[in-house]
């Protein structure tokens, strides 16, 4: 990337909402159904039909608006965006133009060590389009209307991002919030989140924005990143060669890793927005808006900061937990018991617990493991009743069976041995059996100490206190 230029990025993100039904009719909103089975005269745009707005769509939109610190427009309405294409049989999309449901918000994101505030211009609700399947064997294009009328929220950001990395973090943060709120499946691979990316470049230090180019059809995190890098480089190359940039719309081809011109400004669509005559305006009661605000959960960025500042976790660990609703809810439930500290807990949640969940391809919440048993086990490590090695044995049991860790320790004789005479016997025998390692240590290769302590742990069947072994081993060698 040429460092004479600054990249300016704004994102328009569409997310499908996970309501039971479509936005304007009672057809099921489900992904992967048999083609054209969730359809009716309303969503197929037949003449004489009338749309009726789904209240859940409004509710979900307001929840997201609150999460993005927006003003909620309590009196709002819908508009028609007219365009002629087979994915919308009405020849217009019912959307919102001048009075979006939510506006003027912001989202704080964590990029590197910095908190960046990205402005949110607006959030509005609208309908998704039908899916066009380009199939040569049928000599044309097939239309599946199942997706037509699926509710969408469109979230438009200010041109506040300054790199592809920031845009990627912004999108990931939005996705996690959608999941936290439970209002979207947010599966990019199923197209439930899609982004249009606006990119311009300007010389570093310039105040004016450069010519903005929109790239459509970006449907993965890496796609967003690559589409921005590609477009910024294309613009810089044009400028460096003395060329001129034009406001235009380009289409991202993820497989080819490049974009192609879709239409120039001259051919820009004129959507002729006007108020939707088939729907009246509506007023959302103030109590509803306030109640939805009160129900807002702690969001991922706040969680990350809390884990770092109050729990003392590293940035990486805090973020890995917070960006997964499953991990975060489990971690918080464990912390709420007050029985164990955050550091060891985060090691276990991110380590063994996640490993088992991944192996079984399930969520942590779906494991038979209970919060109580995990925190009891960690408390036993913290008060030095058991070693980490013995804890693994306990974990293998409690991950599947609701047994008390203390009982398991007793039944299996896993309690850590801190009796120094018992440990000394083991240290002496390890020293006797590892003459070469002892000489290495004396010769300055102190890193063999780990190996020697490991041998002690092995002989004690994981029950010896490793810290005591270490001290006793050093003392024994130095006194020999």
């Amino acid at each position, binding site marked *: 990337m040429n460092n004479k230029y600054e990249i300016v990025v704004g994102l328009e993100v569409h997310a499908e909402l996970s*309501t*039971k*039904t479509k936005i304007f*009719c*009672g*057809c*099921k909103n489900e992904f992967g159904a*048999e*083609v*054209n*089975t*969730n*359809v*009716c*005269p309303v969503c*197929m745009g037949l003449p004489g039909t009338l749309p*009726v*707005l*789904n*209240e*859940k*769509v*409004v509710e979900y939109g307001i929840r997201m608006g609150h999460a993005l610190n927006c003003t909620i427009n309590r*009196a*709002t*309405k819908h508009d028609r965006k007219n365009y*002629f*294409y*087979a994915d919308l049989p009405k020849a217009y999309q019912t959307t919102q133009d*001048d*009075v979006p449901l939510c506006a003027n918000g912001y989202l704080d994101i964590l990029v590197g060590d910095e908190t960046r505030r990205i402005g949110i211009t607006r959030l509005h609700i609208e309908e998704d389009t039908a899916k*066009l*399947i*380009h*199939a*040569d064997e*049928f*000599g*044309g*294009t*097939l*239309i*599946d*209307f199942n997706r037509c009328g699926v509710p969408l929220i469109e979230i438009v950001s200010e041109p506040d991002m300054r790199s592809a990395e920031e845009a990627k973090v912004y999108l990931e943060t939005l996705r996690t919030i959608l999941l936290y709120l439970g209002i979207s499946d947010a599966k990019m691979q199923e197209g439930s989140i899609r982004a249009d990316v606006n990119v311009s470049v300007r010389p570093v230090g310039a105040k004016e924005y450069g010519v903005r180019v929109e790239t459509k059809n970006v449907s993965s995190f890496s796609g967003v990143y690559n589409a921005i890098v590609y477009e910024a480089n294309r613009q810089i190359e044009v400028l460096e060669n003395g060329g001129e940039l034009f406001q235009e719309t380009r289409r991202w081809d993820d497989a080819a890793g490049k974009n192609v011109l*879709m239409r120039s400004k001259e*051919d820009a*669509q*004129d959507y002729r927005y006007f108020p939707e005559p088939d*729907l*009246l*305006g*509506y*007023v959302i009661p103030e109590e509803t808006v306030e109640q939805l605000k009160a129900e807002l959960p702690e969001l991922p960025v706040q969680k990350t900061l809390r884990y770092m500042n109050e729990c003392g976790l590293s940035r990486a660990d805090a973020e890995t937990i917070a960006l997964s609703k499953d991990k975060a809810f489990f971690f918080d439930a464990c912390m709420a018991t007050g029985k164990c500290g955050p550091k060891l807990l985060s090691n276990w949640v991110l380590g063994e617990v996640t490993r088992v969940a991944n192996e079984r391809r399930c969520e942590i919440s779906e494991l038979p493991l209970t919060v109580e048993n995990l925190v009891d086990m960690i408390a036993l490590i913290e008060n030095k009743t058991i070693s980490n090695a013995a804890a693994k044995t306990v974990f293998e049991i409690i991950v599947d069976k609701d047994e008390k860790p203390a009982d398991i320790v007793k039944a299996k004789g896993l309690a850590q041995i801190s009796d120094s005479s018992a440990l000394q016997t083991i240290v002496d025998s390890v020293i006797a059996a590892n003459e070469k390692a002892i000489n290495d240590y004396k010769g300055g290769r102190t890193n063999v100490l780990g190996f020697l302590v490991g041998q002690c742990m092995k002989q004690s069947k994981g029950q010896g206190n490793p810290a005591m072994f270490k001290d006793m081993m050093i003392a024994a060698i130095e006194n020999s």
Partner: protein
Amino acid sequence: MKIDIRHIAKLSKLSIPEDQIERFEEEMQAILSMVEHLPEIEGSAVVVDTTNTMELRADEVIPSASREDMLMNAPQVAAGCIVMPKVVE
């Protein structure tokens, strides 16, 4: 507002003969001057009429129509879908 008939014709995918352009321009300009007065009508500045609002619908599934019925009027159907001439936008 200036009417650009060639641009409008292009957007609407209409071909308008050159010798007709001037006539269309005059006629549409006349329509536009009339429409431009609409905002002066009392009450037209109200964006959302809060005195006449709609009820919203509960998020409950209503059985969909049968695919056969919905596709009945389509000129061509294949694999459960309406077929249309190949387009890629």
